[in-house]
């Protein structure tokens, strides 16, 4: 009589193999989705390039995101603001024509949000700018991006907030009610 568990385990190998392959598949599928469809860099209605504007032409962030220094939200520039320059600049490029279309139809541009916080988070741009935080600390090196995206260095997660609050020894910076509403 055989009492060893080894042969019994051997008999289980095919089944175990199937399970292992399923698990491996899960990981691969998850990774594939994350890698190829991250959703952190959606295609925008107009292929606006921060690289050209903020990087090459060195337009300051708050030239367009004017609200940032006085409001909780940074705000996106109005279509008229875009047209302020693009009435003159690069008017013939296809993307600028798109912009012109929006402007002529008096329609807003339906940008897709990339840097988004959940609704239960109170984040105020004003205070952070007043404290001298660079935009890039949370938004990543946008001036190098053709298409805006979330980066691993600035993933818009709570850990990032906490680290910074700890490093800078923000008063009551670790209290939940400083940020959660």
């Amino acid at each position, binding site marked *: 009589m055989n*009492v060893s568990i080894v042969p019994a385990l051997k008999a289980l190998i095919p089944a175990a193999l199937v399970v292992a392959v399923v698990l491996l598949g899960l990981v691969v599928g998850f990774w594939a989705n994350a890698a190829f469809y991250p959703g952190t860099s959606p295609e925008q209605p107009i292929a606006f390039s921060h690289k050209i504007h903020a990087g090459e032409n060195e337009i300051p962030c708050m030239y367009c995101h004017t609200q940032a220094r006085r409001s909780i939200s940074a705000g996106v520039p109005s279509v008229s603001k875009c047209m302020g320059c693009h009435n003159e600049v690069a008017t013939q490029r296809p993307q600028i024509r798109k912009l012109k279309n929006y402007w002529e139809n008096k329609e807003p541009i339906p940008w897709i949000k990339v840097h988004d916080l959940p609704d239960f988070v109170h984040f105020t741009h004003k205070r952070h700018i007043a404290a001298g935080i660079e935009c890039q600390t949370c938004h990543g090196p946008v001036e190098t991006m053709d298409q805006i995206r979330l980066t691993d260095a600035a993933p818009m997660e709570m*850990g990032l907030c*906490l680290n910074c609050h700890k490093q800078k020894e923000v008063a009551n910076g670790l209290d939940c009610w400083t940020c959660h509403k």
Partner: protein
Amino acid sequence: MPEAKELQYADIHRDVVRSIVETGPKYYITLGTAIFVTLLCFFFPWFYQLYYGIGAAGLNHPQVWGTYLASFIFWIGLSHSGTLLSCVLHLTNSSWRKAMYRSAEAMTLFSLVVAFTFVMVHLGRPWFIHWSLPYPNQMEMWPNFRSPLLFDVMAITTYLTGSAIFIYMGSIPDFAAVRDRTIGWRNTMYTLLSLGWRGTDREWHRLHWAYTFLAVLIIPLAVSVHSIVSWDFALSIVPALHQTIFAPYFVVGAIYSGTAGIVTVMFILRKYMDFGQYITKVHFDNLGKLLLVLSLIWTYINMVELFTGWYSGASTEHEALQYKLFGYYAPLYWEMILFCAVAPLLCISKRFRTSFVPMLILSIAVNIGMYTERFLIVGTSLSRQYLPDAWGLYVPSLVELSIILGSFALFSTFFLIFVKIFPSVSMYEVKETMSTPKTEPEAPPEGNPA
């Protein structure tokens, strides 16, 4: 001693293995029904509640706890019978324990699992339950170690682990016995489960040692688990809950309902699994005595509870008592007294204790009474708190009642699967209680005590 004088080692093996291997249509019908009822009455309403919100239950302000928590205590209580009783009896060397303890321990295990599902059902956002576990995370949030609810999480997981190891360890020799009598996938399964058990002296020695060690460990654990469950209530300042008697009250109540639960399960095993030769009048007699003692202790504690409430002289305590005794749920209270304090007095009579059907009825009545007790603890005290203007009334909804019903089906499902996997009577320990066989059994003596 068992009544069947001619019972042989071989018979034990035959009966037990038969109970595992031979499966009639009756079993499948029962299992099918149990699974169906579980899905229909437990999971369907629960998913509805997940979708709709806790509003699907009858809860309201101020009565934010209800039958889910009552059921949680009930199942935790039921779990106490098994492993705790088994340990105590093991340490006191009570031979009559041996035929019943396996199923009792299984009850413990499954009751705990069902109790855990009730925690999930109870929570407003069960999908975040992992936040009650301490693990490092980027939010740098830890659970609140001051919370009795967290004590609960710890206590119950420990108890669950302990009970699982206990029942498994005790079953190893029996798995080996079954392994040697089965073929095919069952053989594979039991080979794995028996961990290469050969029945050598050394193995037996170690098993006994480890088993006793665990038994000693589990007793305080079991007592602490229900004490901690009681602290969920006693640490609040709700009138009628904020009482020092609560820990012993809960522990005694738990053992009480657990013991009654064992009677029920044993009756069913005896009747429907043909274990008549193993589960005998002796067991019922002893359990009856135990029930009687427990009921007396329980009654005493109840009287103490009433007395302290009255003696406090506080309007809040008086009102809470008043509501319990004479309020909306007064019929339930008196039903509980009848079932849990009065009815068990019948166990004074030996004739009663040794009659199977009356004992079954009593055991069911006690558990109904004990469920009522839990319901009253949760369901009435919160309605009568400090501010009279915020008083309320709580009536359980259909969803809740259905989930309670479904939880019994869930428990039965687990149990039905259990009896087909585990030898539901401990073969080797029953054998220990028998005289040496007259003839050599056909099977190798893997379970023969030295």
